[in-house]
């Protein structure tokens, strides 16, 4: 038996054309040339290890961070989460007409990384679970007359729960959502139920370990969006809003164990999504047909196949990184393997972001038109409301030409590559006293980054879903 695998996404009415061969060649050439150039002109003392944070005006800081403002941000977050869950439970089953799916998987999941990269951790104030947790904690303190006691968070667990959660969020959309033989994606009802389950889990964990502790290490969205926020230039320190040197906050991000797993999971899940209809299509269909022939049901076979491949992607991306780390550890004067493994994890954040832009840029631009027109006016998609008079608007797919999309995709990968190399070189100058050995260690990270960037380009040139 032989089946064609269905389209995994519920929202995609249009897919990107593969990047043409000439642009692939140019992109790869620029990456290689830039990489060798980087080796020859590297600076000798670290520039990003200190963030040079300085406060913004006290008035602005007070206005934006005042308790009433923080309550307002929290309320906005809670309201939007509730709206998405309500729309998912009560609205239409058509994924593209329901507010829930676009809001959760496009506006939030893709939008926050985008804004965080430039601004900083903008999700934190709007995080609905953090807001709810703080209210409950405050109420407990007021009633009991003492602050709530929490369990000690196991240090070694670190950010592993967030890494696993990240894979689960993507898995829900592109693996659970796809069912055998029929081209439908995740239905809004399932997304809403998942959001409810996740909320219960998150609030329970916050009760056990404390709100801030769980946001720092376990809460998927805080950790994931916060990771990209480290690239941005705004940050809060001691209750004051300030500006820091862009990229500098990444250098202290991976001090929590398991951080490398988070950034690896991000690259791996995006790779899988990009590859499933192109580079991995043959392998996926082969595995799927084997399972079906062995008597596994269509839906189970599809989910099992995709799950195995997502985990293989995670292992593969992690392995490439670890080989690079192992190589660096062999350079004279190197710190321990463990220190290097954590110490260079942040250099992959720009690569992870570049992968996101390369794979989801057009989807985000097109789907946000729906988000701010008919999905906002008719969140349930039942045709019963027209809150802002925009229900009849559609998505203008002519907004972006194929050429514009290609240039953004390849440009993002090249820029991400350059920033990744910059951060890695900077970290090497901090770890190795001798400049020549620092540069030698960077042959390894350079190989890792060229591998990721060229793999990203390859995925785009085969097909992109």
């Amino acid at each position, binding site marked *: 038996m032989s089946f064609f695998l269905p389209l995994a996404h519920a929202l995609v009415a249009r897919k*990107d054309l593969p990047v043409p061969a000439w642009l692939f*060649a140019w992109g790869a050439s620029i990456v*290689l040339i830039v990489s*060798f150039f980087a080796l*020859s002109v590297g600076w000798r003392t670290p520039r990003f290890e200190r963030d040079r944070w300085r406060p913004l005006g006290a008035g602005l800081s007070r206005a934006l961070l005042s308790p009433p403002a923080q309550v307002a941000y929290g309320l906005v977050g809670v309201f939007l989460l509730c709206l998405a869950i309500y729309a998912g439970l009560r609205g239409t089953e058509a994924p593209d007409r329901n507010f829930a799916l676009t809001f959760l998987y496009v506006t939030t999941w893709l939008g926050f990384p985008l804004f965080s990269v430039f601004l900083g951790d903008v999700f934190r104030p709007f995080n609905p679970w953090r807001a709810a947790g703080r209210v409950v904690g405050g109420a407990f303190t007021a009633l009991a007359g003492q602050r709530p006691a929490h369990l000690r968070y196991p240090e070694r667990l670190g950010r592993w729960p967030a890494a696993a959660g990240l894979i689960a969020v993507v898995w829900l959309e592109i693996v659970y959502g796809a069912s055998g033989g029929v*081209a439908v994606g995740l239905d809004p009802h399932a997304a809403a139920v998942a959001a409810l389950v996740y909320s219960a889990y998150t609030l329970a964990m916050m009760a056990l370990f404390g709100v801030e502790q769980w946001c720092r290490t376990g809460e998927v969205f805080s950790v994931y969006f916060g990771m990209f926020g480290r690239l941005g230039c705004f940050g809060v320190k001691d209750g004051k809003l300030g500006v820091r040197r862009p990229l500098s906050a990444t250098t202290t991000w991976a001090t929590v164990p398991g951080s490398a797993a988070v950034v690896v999971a991000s690259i791996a899940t995006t790779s899988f999504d990009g590859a499933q209809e192109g580079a991995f299509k043959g392998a996926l269909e082969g595995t799927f047909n084997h399972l079906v022939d062995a008597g596994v049901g269509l839906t189970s076979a599809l989910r099992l196949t995709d799950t195995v491949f997502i985990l293989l992607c995670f292992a593969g991306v992690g392995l490439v990184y670890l080989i690079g780390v192992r190589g660096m550890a062999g350079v004279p004067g190197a710190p321990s393997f463990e220190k290097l493994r954590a110490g260079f994890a942040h250099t992959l954040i720009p690569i992870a972001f570049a992968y996101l832009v390369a794979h989801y840029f057009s989807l985000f631009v097109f789907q946000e038109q729906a988000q701010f027109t008919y999905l906002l006016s008719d969140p349930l998609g039942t045709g019963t409301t027209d809150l802002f008079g925009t229900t009849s608007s559609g998505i203008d797919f*002519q907004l972006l030409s*194929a050429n514009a999309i290609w240039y953004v995709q390849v440009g993002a990968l090249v820029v991400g590559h350059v920033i990744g190399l910059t951060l890695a070189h900077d970290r090497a100058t901090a770890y190795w006293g001798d400049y020549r050995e620092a540069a030698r260690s960077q042959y390894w990270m350079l190989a890792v980054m060229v591998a990721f960037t060229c793999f990203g380009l390859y995925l785009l040139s085969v097909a992109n879903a």
Partner: protein
Amino acid sequence: MLLATPRVAVGAAIAIAAIVLLIVLSGNNSNSDTTTKGVTTIAIKNGKPVGGIAQLTYNRGEEVRFKVDSDVSDEVHMHGYDIMKDVKAGGSVSFDFPATIEGVFEAELEGRKEQILELTVNP
């Protein structure tokens, strides 16, 4: 300057060779895409496209023309272009529209969620 060391020079030479290779290789297969001419007929039997999902390729600005002969009653939905046409069991329906939007799109039997066509519009 590190570029003076032999290892890097060798690396750079390999890289340049790789680039040349890539460009040469890519030059060979860049003219292989062909566009669809005339009217294609997609036959639907038992609610599925005969011979698998049809593939049509056009350049932007050309006319997309295809006909769906169906043995089931359903609605044919051309995604992206958002054109919907009903078809009766045993009947047929024709599509004729300019390829104005670049990208890869699917047409499906809306009621059955069955994809019947993948339409590619190149710039």
